[in-house]
């Protein structure tokens, strides 16, 4: 299975914000959409960074005035991005290893969605559950055949 299968049932492409917007606006978006990260895009659809809850928390520990700061000030710039046909297993490993919780997915330089580690775990769980169910059905068929 590839990560396009996750994006297919997510409706909205991804929640985005522009670098010049404020952290206050970012918090409002995170709360409104009930998500843990926003993709920072410039000039339409090109991702230039990611802003996660963790980025904001980290900044808040030493900066009382962060609400008025811009997204560009505290976003993470070196973003690892995925491609739609990257396979689930590899992406899961990479996200766990590099402790990434949100992976923007880019196709031909265009942002096409975002997958979270939660999405990946759910997809893996469903995959294993499905395989188990199919195997069980086959074992039962064996029993009947005997």
């Amino acid at each position: 299975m590839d990560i396009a299968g996750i994006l297919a049932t997510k409706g909205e492409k991804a929640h985005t914000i522009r670098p010049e917007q404020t952290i206050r606006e970012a918090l409002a978006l995170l709360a409104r959409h009930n998500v843990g990260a926003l993709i920072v895009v410039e000039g339409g659809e090109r991702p230039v960074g990611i802003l996660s809850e963790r980025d904001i928390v980290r900044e808040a520990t030493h900066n009382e005035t962060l609400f008025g700061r811009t997204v560009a000030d505290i976003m993470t710039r070196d973003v690892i991005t995925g491609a739609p046909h990257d396979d689930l297993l590899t992406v899961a490993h990479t996200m766990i290893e590099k402790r990434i919780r949100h992976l923007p997915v880019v196709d031909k330089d265009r942002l096409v969605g975002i997958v979270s580690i939660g999405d990946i775990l759910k997809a893996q769980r469903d995959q294993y559950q499905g395989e188990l169910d199919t195997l069980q059905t086959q074992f039962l068929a064996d029993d009947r055949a005997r």
Partner: protein
Amino acid sequence: MARPGTAAEPLRVAIVGAGPTGYYAAEALFKNEHGVVVEVDVYDRLPTPYGLVRAGVAPDHQKIKAVTAAFDKVAANPRFRFFGGVEFGKDLTLGDLRAHYHQVLYCTGAQTDRRMGIPGEDLQGSHPATEFVAWYNGHPDYRDYGFDLSQERAAVVGVGNVAIDVARILCRTPEELATTDIAEHALEALRKSRVKEVYLLGRRGPAQAAFTNPEIKEIGELADADVIVRPEEVELDPLSRAALDKSQDRATRKKVEILQGYALRKPAGKSRRLIVRFLVSPVELTGDAAGRVVAMRLVRNELYATATGALQPRATTLFEALPVGLVFRSVGYRGVPLPGVPFNESWGVILNEKGRVLDPDTKQPIVGEYTAGWIKRGPSGVIGTNKPDAAETVACMLEDLAQGAVLQPAHPAAAVAEALVRQRTPNCLSYADWLRLNALEVSRGRAQGRPRVKFTRVEEMLAALGR
């Protein structure tokens, strides 16, 4: 208005598509933990149910087809009805369904194949593998298709389980096939087959091939076909080796071991050869003056790692020619849009969020419309994968019901819906009809020592039922 879901006013759900997902969804609806009383009407374009379990799963894989016993249990629920031979958008419109049901659930699967996008793809003798599969499985729409089995060399592009099914069926002896429920017309055609060599072509390496281990083992045990693998193509490249060491994925390790074992085998001189190739992609099909495919030009690929470490193929400048007279492409599947239902072109699925169909403009859920299975998430996983997928959608359906967000049909009575369907499609089949037809197929098969002999024309099915 009282919320539906009681014995007096059940929640009425129309499911479009009687494949595995349709059954899993019906089961999840019946077993709901909220005490909601649900009535399910399942519609299928074909007179017969089970979707790809009947028309896709290979005839020599009866154990996989045995999942239908679980489906029949779901169908035995008195609140389950089946209407076979009723096409959504033609015999019944979305408007009709909205006037008779509180919720509509689309489970129509991925009905078309992806194209390779190379010159010569449409030459005579080049086919989507799905057409061949539907043909040998007796799908009525493909009953009169023909495949030129007088050719000696065939190539199957792709290394998923469908590709391997096609290659295996081409390599089976008539005696092996005669114990399966392969369609009679296909069995007759394959008896006369002159195919001697079948190539299975993977664009990446053995560690990335989608086929599963039981399938790869099976091709090493064919009665009259040798499996041939080039040692250098199943030797892992450094990237694949590193990825496998890191992931400790035992199934993939085993897959590579089996293939490397095949590379060491000496051909036993059987009459057919199944040749599995890796790291090659067709770039062009070439034809003769009559427009028939005669060869395939292949490019050798190398692997590279994407940013996440996933391994993808990249063409080199090394080419080779492969003379073949028959080509089956099996490089992926794609959903087909349904009339009036929003579609997500990027992924080839109904536009949805967790199974709730979305309005393309507002991106908000459309009240009363849902989707599950391959037409929701794309073609991935095994049959059972559709069970958790359907459960996710059903959870959304029940959540929306609790919020009162359901359709308000003008005619919610089950009898009214049935009257409409029977008026539009007088020849539609009920589940009882299907069970009779099934018994007839099985008894026809018993005489020949086969699991069943399928009816492969709609008229034949109707005649068998005395219509």
